[in-house]
């Protein structure tokens, strides 16, 4: 399944590029290549690089099939998490969300929030208390004492598609990238999500 995400990501690049190219036409002269293509391709490459590493790790740890044993599920998550953290011991904020990608994604998120109707904004405001209140770090195990805040469903189609192994989540005003099975925070973008709505 992780291989199919590249095609979806590419399709999104095309759509977003088209939207931005169209949106910028009046202000700027037409250019031969859209910079968003490069940005998204760079992001896809960084994600791909992580997935390659992860596949190597899961080859040695093994895949997880449904089991009656929660101990087995937990042990596998811990083993995978430890292996990821050890293999990415030098990882730092911005390795996947490069500053250029982060700035562009933050713009996309802000634009999506601006498009929201009043009832949607009200709902989000009512749910602010559900946002986890901790400072995320790269290679941190997402604290199990906090719930995973519901990700705004209208925002997901705006962001580049991800392989099923990783996901976006919101912590305070941070957008984070999280390994779903290992529960490890891979990267984060501070100030990415408008607060209070």
């Amino acid at each position: 399944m992780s291989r199919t995400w590249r095609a979806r990501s590419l399709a999104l690049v095309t759509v977003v590029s088209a939207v931005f190219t169209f949106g910028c036409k009046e202000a700027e002269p037409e250019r031969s290549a859209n910079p968003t293509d490069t940005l998204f391709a760079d992001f896809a490459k960084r994600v791909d690089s992580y997935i390659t590493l992860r596949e190597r790790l899961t080859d040695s740890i093994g895949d997880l099939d449904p089991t009656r044993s929660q101990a087995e599920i937990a042990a596998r998550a811990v083993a995978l998490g430890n292996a990821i953290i050890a293999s990415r011991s030098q990882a730092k904020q911005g390795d996947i969300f490069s500053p250029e990608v982060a700035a562009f994604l933050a713009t996309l998120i802000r634009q999506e929030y601006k498009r929201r109707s009043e009832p949607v904004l009200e709902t989000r405001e009512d749910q602010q208390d559900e946002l986890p209140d901790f400072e995320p770090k790269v290679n941190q195990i997402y604290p199990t004492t906090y719930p995973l805040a519901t990700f705004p469903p209208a925002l997901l189609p705006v962001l580049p598609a991800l392989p099923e192994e990783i996901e976006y989540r919101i912590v305070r005003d941070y957008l984070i990238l999280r390994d779903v099975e290992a529960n490890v925070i891979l990267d984060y973008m501070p100030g990415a999500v408008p607060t209070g709505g």
Partner: protein
Amino acid sequence: MKRHLAMLAGIIAACAPAGAAAQDMKLPVMPNSVRFLVIGDAGTGDRQQNEVAAQIVRWYAQFPFTFAIMLGDNIYGKERPQDFAKKFEEPYKRLLDAGVKFHAALGNHDDPNQRYYKPFNLDGKRYRTFKEGNVRFFILDSNYLDPEQVKWLEKELEDSDSEWKIAYFHHPLYTTARRGPEVELRAILEPIFVKHGVDVVFTGHEHVYERFKPQKGIHHFLAGGAAKLRRGDTRRGPLTAAAFDRDRSFMLVEIIDNKMFFQAVSRTGAVIDEGILTSRETAEATPAPALPLVRSP
């Protein structure tokens, strides 16, 4: 002797809710019907969850359902092996031992790795579908409704020729409770449900019971009070058909051909709502009996 009589009286008093339950059971319990339990926000492992579970077991004796649907927040807090024991396996042991199959949806308090926990029957997936008799169930992960899941849902709904289509997930599309409905989710899901003839939607998240007048032909139930309670949290509105926020609750459902019979039951065994619905495919919806709203003063 006096002491023995006092003890006997105590036992009878303790069993009173079970007696009330026996009188109030109105579901048909027909052979070959589709019978199931609905619980939401259940996984606290506390006294209240166990009391609700004990009440469910009492009703099970008269209403032997074959499976249960869980509306998310299946395991609150830590998810160590002992938590799965305390918050799921022990409260529902009698049902599990009797072969009742649990089909869980993921809530915002659930680690997505729960999809690998076999007793939750998610088969390693965050969203899935299963069929029981003439009913097709669609389990969604409303915590992370990505475009791929939406595409999957549309295809599965399109491919389904079941008489009943029931969707369930954690976040309510309609509620009068404190945090309000998930309108962003509703904007995406409701048109799909309408287009493909979904009959009923079950959700949790808010720790109350609510039933709404059919919205665009769809019946919405919120049953998020199987352990936690937000007392006095419902507000009667124009869409409200029934609500209960004075105690914990669960639902029992039976589907026979084009009829769906339901009863919502409190922790103490009182019936707090009941009615009969008709599937969209076969007829115009038969309005469920209008019951008085039960809520905190």
